[in-house]
């Protein structure tokens, strides 16, 4: 099993990128790969419960559904700690399956040979 990191830096500022990031992450986890989505910069907003409910990019499944499937299939969601803090987001309202992390956690995963793609 390979390690795959999908870095998502967009939310409502670019719903296309946010959506495609999760589409690729879903392809990865559904292909049996150890997959981490790293929500950072504006992407940190996606970790807030309810935020993604109204994001439905044309030609794709609703983002909430994609994110739910990702976690259900065994994917891991990490949220950038300073990005989360900067935006005044609330830990008590994190989406299920998301964990707040800092750079060292991501670096550890990458140092183990993970490939990374960024949206």
């Amino acid at each position, binding site marked *: 099993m390979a390690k795959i990191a999908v870095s998502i830096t967009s939310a409502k500022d670019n719903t296309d990128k946010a959506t495609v990031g999760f589409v690729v992450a879903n392809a990865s986890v559904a292909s049996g790969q150890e997959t981490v989505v790293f929500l950072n910069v504006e992407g940190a907003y996606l970790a807030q419960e309810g935020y993604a409910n109204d994001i439905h990019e044309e030609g794709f499944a609703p983002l909430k559904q994609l994110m739910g499937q990702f976690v259900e299939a065994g994917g891991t969601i*990490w949220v950038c700690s*300073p990005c*989360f*803090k900067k935006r005044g987001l609330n830990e008590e309202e994190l989406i299920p399956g998301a964990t*707040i992390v*800092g*750079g*060292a*956690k991501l670096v*550890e995963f990458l140092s183990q040979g993970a490939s990374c793609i960024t949206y």
Partner: protein
Amino acid sequence: MPNVPYQVDVLYDAGPTGCGELIMNLFMTMKKMSSKQIIEVVSYDLGAREDIPAWCRLQGHTLLERRDVDKTNHYYIQKN
């Protein structure tokens, strides 16, 4: 400070710093320590709960334990 069964040699209060800032400060602080010495890191950062264990694994230091006092986390790390 929590009551722990070992001698803490260095105390580092990281406060609200997190991510790369906390890790760099911790790295510089521990660089001055001798092997087997123990540092207590006090942090309020949510990400540190995942970051400090990961950093210890990367650097080969031993995270003895984490103790939580309300929303403050105390990490006890023994230098390799």
